[in-house]
């Protein structure tokens, strides 16, 4: 019996002995909210009466801010949620939903055809947050949400605020990230309503932006209104403003941006600071003209530098370089090493020095880099997944795919296209269905030198492919590919020397190789596999 048959036997035996509890589970399930909240308003004569009455009162134009306080069905509270979708929930005093308004296009996507009329606030919040997660509005990259409560009764507003914060906090505890919540009370004024309406945002977001603008003179309402709540939260966390009476929990994610380290690297490269120079740089996240930027300030070789760098693309937006009066510059070096430009934009400079490739590669380009490196063509690839990620402040793409029974995983630098990490392993699913194919993929020397040269375009200095590295290691160990188990190959950057790490087991021994990219065996180790 081979491995495949054993796995299959274990699987089928468990499929047979696992008790069937499906019916019991279903019995205990509370029916899903979205399906049950459709309230038959029109069939309820009482409710209809109320709405007619309410409409009548409105027609009379009674200047009565809250229509019939005693009416349990009148709107007493407005809760708004802002992420980028802005949703406004109108509640009666029993916390039943009267109406939900989508304030922008994103909110219409979130709401879909869900109908919450008459359902409890909890149900609506649950479904709305779920929908925001599913539709990718709240993610690891942007995890902030703003809750605003508008209620004449300040105790009720405060309680509701606390309750919602707790509830949404729980809903946003996911496998990979936690939410960041800003919570405030808001009072409706004509002025605020007009501003909110003009920009398709909630009163709450309008209030938050108003506060930021009031506290920080470099901001304007128009600049900030396009930012998401996560961006605004980042500005608050960076200390550029501290909105009053706003509770904050969790930490806003910065993962959508290149990060301070990368921003520093870009600035240093641009200023021609030699690699390895340690500089004290001051970094800050801020917003300018409606985009999030990193500010990098440092002193080098007698000059003070100030950079504004687009936090998404890494593009240098603004450079300032001036003589540092505290220090005496080494005169004969300055001026030639760097191209000075006093307080002008980087445009005039592009081309003279060596500006980093500031724009990110597209997913398509990155995919091609991985395919080239793996020596596969697009038509052979299946199960492809490309994800943009940020690792230690560097934006990367994670590319996963399968081809010829091998599963590949790449981590590729989003700007330079350099392959940072690479991993391939035999695809067990393919092995289960066609083991012969897998074996041939492993033993076949699929590498040709022409494929290897293709990898050069990726920026990685690989001259041999991972498969070739495996072959070299196997040959060195005197082990045939068929006997090697758990064969793995990864690129590594120990001590800045790029090489492949090849590991496998055979005949009771565990082998560990380091193969340089020109095919030299740098290190070989074997030990008893116990």
């Amino acid at each position: 019996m081979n491995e495949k048959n054993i796995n299959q036997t274990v699987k089928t035996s468990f499929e047979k002995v696992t008790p069937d509890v499906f019916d019991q589970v279903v019995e205990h399930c509370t029916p899903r909210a979205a399906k049950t909240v459709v309230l038959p308003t029109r069939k309820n004569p009482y409710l209809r009466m109320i709405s007619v009455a309410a409409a009548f009162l409105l027609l009379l134009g009674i200047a009565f801010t809250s229509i019939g306080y005693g009416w349990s069905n009148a709107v007493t509270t407005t809760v708004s949620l802002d992420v980028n979708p802005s949703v406004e929930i109108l509640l009666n005093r029993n916390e039943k939903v009267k109406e939900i308004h989508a304030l922008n296009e994103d909110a219409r996507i979130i709401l879909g055809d869900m109908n919450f009329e008459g359902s409890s606030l909890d149900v609506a919040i649950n479904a709305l947050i779920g929908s925001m997660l599913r539709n990718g509005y709240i993610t690891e990259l942007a995890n902030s949400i703003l809750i605003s409560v508008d209620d004449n009764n300040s105790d009720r507003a405060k309680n509701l605020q606390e309750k919602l914060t707790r509830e949404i906090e729980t809903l946003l505890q996911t496998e990979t990230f936690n939410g960041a919540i800003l919570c405030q009370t808001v009072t409706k004024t004509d002025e605020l309503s007009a501003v909110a309406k003009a920009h398709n945002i909630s009163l709450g977001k309008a209030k938050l932006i108003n506060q930021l603008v009031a506290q920080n003179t470099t901001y304007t309402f128009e600049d900030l209104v396009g930012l998401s709540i996560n961006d605004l939260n980042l500005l608050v966390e960076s200390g550029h403003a501290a909105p009053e009476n706003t509770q904050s929990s969790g930490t806003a994610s910065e993962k959508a941006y290149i990060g301070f380290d990368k921003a520093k690297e870009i600035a240093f490269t641009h200023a021609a600071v030699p690699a390895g120079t340690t500089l004290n740089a001051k970094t800050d996240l801020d917003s300018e003209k409606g985009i999030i930027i990193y500010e990098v300030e440092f002193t080098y070789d007698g000059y003070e530098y100030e950079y504004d760098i687009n936090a998404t693309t890494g593009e240098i937006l603004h450079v300032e370089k001036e003589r540092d009066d505290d220090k005496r510059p080494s005169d004969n070096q300055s001026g030639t090493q760097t191209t000075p430009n006093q307080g002008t934009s980087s445009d005039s400079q592009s081309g003279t020095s060596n500006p980093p490739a500031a724009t990110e590669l597209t997913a398509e380009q990155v995919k091609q880099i991985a395919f080239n490196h793996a020596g596969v063509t697009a038509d052979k690839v299946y199960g492809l997944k490309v994800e943009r990620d940020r690792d230690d402040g560097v934006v990367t793409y994670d590319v996963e795919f399968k081809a010829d029974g091998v599963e590949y995983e790449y981590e590729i630098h989003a700007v330079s296209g350099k392959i940072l990490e690479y991993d391939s392993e035999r695809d067990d699913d393919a092995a289960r269905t066609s083991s012969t194919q897998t074996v041939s993929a492993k033993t076949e020397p699929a590498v040709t030198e022409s494929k290897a040269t293709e990898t050069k375009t990726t920026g990685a200095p690989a001259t041999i492919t991972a498969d070739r590295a495996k072959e070299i290691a196997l040959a060195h160990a005197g082990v045939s590919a068929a006997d090697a188990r758990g064969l793995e190959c990864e690129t590594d950057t120990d001590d800045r020397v790029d090489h492949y790490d090849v590991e496998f087991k055979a005949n009771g021994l565990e082998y560990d190789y380091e193969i340089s990219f020109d095919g030299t065996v740098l290190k070989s180790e074997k030990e008893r596999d116990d």
Partner: protein
Amino acid sequence: MSGHDHTRTLELSLVGIAAGQSDAFEVLYQETHAGVYAFALSILKNAHDAQDILHDTFLKVYDTAPTYTPMGKPMAWILTITRNLCYSHLREKQKTAEIAPEEWDLHIEPREDLNREERIVLSEGLKTLSDQERQIVLLHAVSDLKHRQISELLSLPLSTVLSKYRRAIKKLEQLLGKETDE
């Protein structure tokens, strides 16, 4: 069904469950219940308790499906729920001084529909493995997890998972090989 399709089916089911489609829940249950049960059993080593956890896992999956973010790892997500339920179950048991059995002793009723190999696996096979070896084999064979995902779920280095898996398969190979030779 290839692994990719399988993952996709599970993710679609989770989204369907979140939207209140009752058949989506049944699809998910059918596709994953053996894997959940096997994993619970590998931790608890008690068929009765594992059945409870099986029940509770799916209840929880149903309740929390709206918070699931599709990231290509639906099974790992479900099994994380299972693992957490098992651990809190064990904590409860410790309070009442009941201790999980040291030995793997699965009392499975002799069943007509089990073939010879399956019987050997269930009775002798899994008993010859260490706790971790058994757990890894079950997660791989029944729950369809990749070795990498197993290493994440169990917080073990990938190399450990791989070597234990190898050793476990070898043991089963020997046992089943010997038995079938007779």
